[in-house]
């Protein structure tokens, strides 16, 4: 089955990213396809390349790299990102910046869209 993922809450401050990460890994292990993760509202902060959590803390940047290495597209909303300082200067290599059309595409193309 094809899944689309929408994350809306900021990483670290909320558990949404962590839950989505574990959900996506489980879905892939079960043979499902993740056609993309769209980061909107405060969730765009997960795409920042400067994240430096202390040792032993959750490492959102390495989670993003892990998802990317599993072939998952990580799309940060350009408009939500710009006002929050997420631009070509600050976006991590794993993530790409694109428009809300990508969220619409996930809504249309996925069999299930799940919001975190």
């Amino acid at each position, binding site marked *: 089955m094809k899944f689309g993922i929408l994350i809306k809450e900021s990483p670290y401050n909320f558990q949404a990213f962590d839950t989505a990460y574990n959900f996506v890994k489980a879905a892939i292990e079960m043979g499902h396809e993740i056609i993309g993760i769209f980061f909107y509202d405060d969730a765009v902060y997960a795409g920042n390349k400067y994240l430096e959590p202390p040792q032993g803390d959750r490492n959102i940047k390495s989670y993003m790299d892990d998802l990317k290495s599993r072939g998952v597209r990580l799309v940060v909303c350009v408009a939500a990102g710009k006002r929050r300082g997420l631009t070509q200067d600050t976006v991590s290599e794993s993530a790409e910046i694109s428009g809300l059309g990508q969220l*619409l595409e996930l809504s249309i193309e996925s069999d299930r869209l799940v919001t975190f």
Partner: protein
Amino acid sequence: MEDQKSKAKIMFLCKTAPYGTIYEQEVIEAMIMFSSYEQDIRVAFIGDGVFSLKKGQNPSLINIKNFAQTYLVLIDDFEVSHLYVEKESLDERGMKEEDLLTEVEVLQRADLISKIDEMKVVLPF
């Protein structure tokens, strides 16, 4: 005109009050973008979301843009097919239909549940 059945039915479920959070502002940005792709886009206001339709908003004193104006043109200028507002949510908040800034379809909760049931995707904001 396209066959209605080929369009994805997508509902924005607006359940947050305006200004205290950004959700109303960013959901409007999403509505405008979605509506340009000729899908079947619905918008439902429930809970505190009904406050987004209150008339007479003037956020100039808090230096925020008056996003509510966008609702006036969503159906006419954009391809949003329906704006629903829930009767029960209005009642709980002491609001009447004449308190709203534009004409929307006021639905009973039971009818809104049926609408939600028809959707392919529901996006909560």
